[in-house]
């Protein structure tokens, strides 16, 4: 299982999914219309490392995080 967390203002409970890469996750999340804006403006981290491509293999126990636009300070 891969845990998917939605950070900050994205009001969505974490998911536990049987997926093996980020591309599968994109397919699943794109079906949820209330997420569409967040998918376009959020960064993605796997095990707390930011990634820049969907070509990322996921294994059991991995954590994927969605980080919407930031504004610290």
């Amino acid at each position: 299982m891969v845990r998917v967390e939605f950070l900050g203002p994205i009001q969505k409970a974490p998911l536990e999914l049987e997926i093996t890469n980020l591309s599968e996750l994109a397919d699943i999340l794109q079906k949820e219309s209330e997420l569409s804006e967040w998918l376009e403006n959020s960064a993605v981290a796997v095990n707390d490392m930011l990634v820049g491509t969907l070509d990322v293999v996921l294994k059991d126990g991995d954590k994927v995080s969605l980080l919407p636009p930031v504004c610290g300070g």
Partner: protein
Amino acid sequence: MLYLYDGALEVPKILEDWYVQETKSNYGAYIPFVGTVREEDGIDGLSFDIYEPILESWFKAWQEKAQLQGAIIKMAHSRGNVMLHESSYIAAVFSPKRRVALEFIDAFVEDFKASAPIWKYDLKGGERIYALTRSTPIQGSGILGEQK
């Protein structure tokens, strides 16, 4: 060092603590940047969410950059609510050299604004409203939204 606090920062105490910590370190320049909540658009204050694991690795990467120039950085940030005219953010650089310090604080604060995983909300009439229009997508955002 990275310091996170619940609510507003005690700015004078933090600025003093950091100054005293480095008293004998032989740095010639100490530049803190202090960010304070401004009265604007009728807000009562701001509120912050922080995702600590990525904030820590982001900060660690900057610590290493500082070290390469013989400098060090320190940062403090608030979690939760910070009201008008209170401060939520302090970043500081210590360096032997003035030019390094001036350039570092600028680059560090700008990257903080663009990259640090912190989310800001306006506090207004009892509501906590995500400040989307003042926020910046982290570099590389949007990959999950790409149509294949």
